[in-house]
């Protein structure tokens, strides 16, 4: 993650769980590694949900959630029991229920179809390839969906609500397309 942003030439990339550091950021990326419950628990235990709320919701600092980081934006997830998320984008995270020929998890490169290009997809083609790896997917109102992809059903691939962005795929693992998306996000800082 950090390797990818640094490759774009940004030198002030800080990996941190310190509230003071987060409060000073111009943009925030919330990567998600692991299970939803574990991530949500860690956020709350370190009181990061409060500081993120202050910075992102009140001050309007742009934030990009990746994979579980995007799912955390939902009201709740059904991964390993029902667990509450941040609730910033109304919606639920549920397990895939797909016909037998579709393997779960959804792993691999899939074509993403952006609904609108502004901000995140501004310098990408109409159906760029991105790398996905997830068993649970985000279900939310159509007005918050920024892009989707096909995997047995129309899967929400990216969401946006004002200055809050989320992508289900992994831009840091999607070669040049991922770098372009990061560049677009960081270029949008200050304009959204």
């Amino acid at each position, binding site marked *: 993650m950090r390797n990818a942003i640094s490759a774009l030439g940004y030198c002030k990339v800080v990996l941190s769980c310190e509230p003071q550091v987060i409060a000073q950021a111009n943009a925030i990326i919330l990567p998600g590694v692991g299970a939803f419950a574990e991530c949500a628990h860690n956020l709350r235990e370190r009181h990061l949900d409060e500081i993120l709320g202050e910075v992102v919701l009140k001050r309007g600092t742009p934030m990009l959630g990746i994979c579980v980081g995007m799912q955390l934006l939902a009201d709740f997830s059904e991964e390993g029991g029902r667990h509450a998320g941040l609730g910033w984008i109304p919606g639920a995270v549920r397990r895939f229920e797909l016909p037998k020929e579709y393997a779960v998890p959804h792993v691999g490169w899939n074509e993403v179809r952006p609904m609108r290009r502004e901000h995140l997809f501004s310098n990408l083609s109409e159906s760029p390839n991105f790398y996905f790896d997830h068993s649970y997917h985000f279900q939310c109102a159509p007005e918050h969906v920024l892009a989707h992809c096909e995997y047995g059903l129309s899967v929400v691939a990216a969401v946006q609500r004002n200055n809050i962005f989320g992508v289900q795929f992994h831009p840091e693992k*999607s070669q040049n397309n991922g770098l*372009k998306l990061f560049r677009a996000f960081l270029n949008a800082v200050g304009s959204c």
Partner: protein
Amino acid sequence: MLKKRIIATLVVRQGIVVQSIGFRTYLPVGRPEIAIEFLNDWGVDEIVLLDISATVEFRGPDMAMVERVAKRCRVPLLVGGGIRTLAHARELVHSGADKVAFNQASLQTPDLLTQVANVLGNQCVVGAIDGLRTTSGYKVYDYVLGQTTSQDPTDLAQAMVRLGCGEIFIQSVDRDGSHQGFDLPLIQAVREGVDVPVICCGGAGGAAHFVEVFEGTDVHAASAANIFHYTEHSVTVAKAALLRAGVFVRNDARANYLENLLGKNGRLEKKTDQALEEMLFVRIEKEVI
């Protein structure tokens, strides 16, 4: 639509990438970070890094190596070898690995798989199986002991999925380094036995073998080690051959070889003189992101 993945496997022994033949003979290739940089530029879909000396030397994964390699890797990285505790798996993910692989040895501590899956998610845990063709059907091979066990690879795959694996990596021991093509019956048996994605490995000798495995089985991803090391742009050429055969793969590299002539075995042939003549005047600007 989800694309089939072409994966490069790097077998690392004592810190250097080696060419493995039949799990017995190892020829040195070079430093892993250099190999990763090339494979990345050629547009491979995923990279598997297997450290085969970790378990044998009774040590944990080489975190420093994973960190060096991850710095240059812009595709998903699966790391295997020597992972014995949850702390190992966690540290690997912090060093830049996206998934961790466990082999049959992990079944001695089945809780470990479940624990890692609960903390890091199922998508992060890959079950690696070494399958060997014997006179009494396919059996699991234990590379640490160098012995064939009595277990059926499909049964092992199902057991691993029950414990929390989100993906299965099936490797054919007898095809390893043979260039004879993938072991289709083994792969299809494992594929039909589980619901999670399956990666096959062992035996690819050229682009034609990739076409064969995707046409002959429903496997989700195919991997090769040796052929990718010795030929420039081999990943892209394999993908061009697959696209021609109607298999859906990602081919985003600028030099995508879609216009090139491919020989019988999927090998690249010289372009026509006229095409070469025209290429003299094409200027390709470096893409700025």
